[in-house]
C-alpha cells in the first residue's frame, strides 16, 4: 500500500491555506502548522475513518490536536475534505467565525477544544477506554507537540494508556525540536525520548514526519503491537516547506507580511504538489 498522490496535494493545500490565514489574521504559530501539514494530510486523506456528511457518527475515528495552536492546519484539512465550505477559512479569527486561533469544538469535525497544552492525551484515553469497554471499534489519534511533553499531565496519561492496554490509541509527537524559548534540548531535555515511551509501555516507531510513505506505513498498521498504545515519533522541521521559515523559532510568533506571503506561496507552487 502507498499513500495516494493526493496526500501531497492536500499537504500543499494545507500549507497554502495556513499561510494565508496567518497572514490575513496576523496570527502566530505558522511554523507549527507547517510542521504538521504532512502528518495531517496523510491522516485525513488515508487513515481517519470520518464522514464529512455525518461528523458526529458514533463509530468515527477520533482525532485530537493537543497542540491546539496549530488549528489552521486542521481547519484547512477539514475544509478540503468537505466538513465545511472552504470559504469559511477567509474569516479565520474574525467576524464571529467559529474558526478561532485555537481548536474549537463547535467547528464540524473537531472533537475537542484545545490550546492549553497537556490536555488532549487524557481525553483521548477516556475516549479509547470507552470504545474498549463498550466494544466499539473506533480508534483515537492524538497529535502532540514536543514542547508540551514538559506537562506532567501527559505523563499521567502515558502511564494510564499503557496500564489499560489501550491499543486503539495512537499518539503522534510532532518532534520539530523547537519550543517557546529555543530548542527542546536547551529548554527541558526530552532525550532519550524513544526510550522514555518504551519504558512507559508503549509501542514506538520513529519516522520522518514529512515523508508521506513513512507516515502512512506506520499509521496504517497501528496498533504496532496488540494490547499496547502506539506512539509515532515524527521527526519534523518547524516551518517545513517555506525555506525562510524552516527551523526558525521566530515563526512560532510572527506572521508573514505581504511580501513574505508571496515568496512563500511561490515556493509552494513550485514544489510540484499542486495538481
Amino acid at each position, binding site marked *: 500500500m502507498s499513500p495516494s498522490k493526493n496526500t501531497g496535494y492536500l499537504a500543499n493545500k494545507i500549507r497554502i491555506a495556513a499561510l494565508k490565514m496567518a497572514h490575513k489574521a496576523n496570527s502566530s504559530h505558522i511554523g507549527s502548522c507547517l510542521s504538521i501539514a504532512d502528518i495531517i494530510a496523510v491522516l485525513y486523506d488515508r487513515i481517519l475513518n470520518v464522514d464529512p456528511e455525518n461528523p458526529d457518527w458514533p463509530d468515527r475515528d477520533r482525532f485530537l490536536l493537543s497542540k491546539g495552536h496549530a488549528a489552521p492546519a486542521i481547519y484547512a484539512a477539514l475544509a478540503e475534505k468537505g466538513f465545511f465550505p472552504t470559504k469559511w477559512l477567509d474569516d479565520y479569527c474574525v467576524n464571529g467565525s467559529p474558526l478561532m486561533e485555537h481548536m474549537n469544538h463547535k467547528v464540524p469535525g473537531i472533537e*475537542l477544544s484545545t490550546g492549553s497544552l497537556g490536555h*488532549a492525551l*487524557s481525553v483521548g*484515553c*477516556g*475516549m479509547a477506554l*470507552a470504545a474498549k469497554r463498550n466494544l466499539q471499534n473506533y480508534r483515537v489519534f492524538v497529535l502532540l507537540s514536543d514542547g508540551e511533553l514538559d506537562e506532567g499531565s501527559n505523563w499521567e496519561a502515558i*502511564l494510564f494508556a499503557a496500564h489499560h492496554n489501550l491499543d486503539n490509541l495512537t499518539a503522534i509527537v510532532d518532534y520539530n525540536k523547537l519550543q517557546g524559548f529555543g530548542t527542546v534540548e536547551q529548554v527541558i531535555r526530552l532525550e532519550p525520548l524513544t526510550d522514555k515511551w518504551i519504558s512507559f509501555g508503549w509501542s514506538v516507531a520513529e519516522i520522518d514526519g514529512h515523508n508521506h510513505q513513512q507516515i502512512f506505513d506506520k499509521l496504517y498498521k497501528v496498533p504496532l503491537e496488540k494490547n499496547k498504545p502506539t506512539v509515532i515519533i515524527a521527526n519534523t522541521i518547524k516551518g517545513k516547506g517555506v525555506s525562510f521559515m524552516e527551523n526558525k523559532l521566530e515563526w512560532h510568533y510572527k506572521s508573514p507580511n505581504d511580501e513574505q506571503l508571496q515568496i512563500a506561496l511561490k515556493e509552494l507552487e513550485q514544489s510540484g504538489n499542486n495538481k
Partner: protein
Amino acid sequence: MRKVFIDTLCNLAQKDKRIWLLTADLGFSFLEKFAEKYPDRFVNIGVAEQNMAGVAAGLALSGNIVFMYSIANFPVFRCLEQIRNDICYHNANVKIVSVGAGMAYGSAGYTHHGIEDIGVMRLLPNMTVVSPADPIETKFATIAIAQHPGPCYLRLGKSNEPVLHQGLPHFELSKAIIVTEGSDITLIASGTILKTAIEAAEQLKIQGYQAEIISVPVIKPFDAETILKSAHKTGRVITIEEHGLGGLATVVAETIVGMKCRFSPILIEQCPITVAAGQQKLREMHGLNVDSLLKTTKAML
C-alpha cells in the same frame, strides 16, 4: 454521606448503564461496592487527578455519565484547568464528587480542607454546584445530578452526619429548602453546618424569636426567589457556611444587593489553619458555632 452517595449511585448504575465511577485512588472501603458490581464501569485512575478529569471528559464525550471521586480540594484544584476546559467548556456530563467538605478532615490539616471549592466551582461555565446538608439531601442530590445532563460539583461531608430534615423535603436542582418558617430573622445555611443553624433557632425560639431556616443545597443555579422572599419578610439575613469567601455569603450578597435588609455572613476568614484540631473544634475557632450564630443574631434583632 459518602455511604449514602455510593449506595444511591449503585442503585442508579443498575438502571443506567452509562454511569461510570472514577477515583484517584481514594475512597478505600467505600467504593468497592460499585467496583464489584460494575467492574466495567469503574476505574481507579491512580493518584493522578489531572488525568482523571481528562479521562472523565473523554468518557463523557463518548456518551457516558461519569462520576469522579476524591477528597476535599484534590478533585477541584489539582485539575482545575481540566475541569474548566475539558469538562465545563465542552459541557461534558461529568460529576465531580468531593468528600470532606469544609474542615471535615480536621487534624489532617489545611492540605485536606475544602474551603475555597464552592467559590471556584461556581465561577465555571455550565457547572451546577451542590452542597447537601445531610444524608437525605445527599440522596436527592445524587439522583438529581445523575439526571442532569452537564457538569456538576457535589460537595459531601464525610461519615455519620445526622439526618436534619423531618420528613422528605422537596428537592430540585434549582431550589432552596425552607426547613422552618419564621418571621424575625432568616438563617441561611449550606452544607452540614445547617445543623448549627437549626440548634441556634431552637434557642432563639425559647427566647421568643421565630427564625426562618433555609437550607441551600444548590448554590448554582441559585434560588434567588426563595431567598428574596424570606429577606423581604424578615429584613434580617445571616448566612453560615463552612467555606471561605466566594461561597454562600457571596451568592446571597449578590442576590440581596440593593434591598433594604440587614445582612451578616458567618464564614471562614482567610487564614490557613496551621494547628491540629477536629472539625468541631476548628469550626468553633472560626466562629462557626451556635454561640457565634446567636451573638450575630442578637446584634441584629
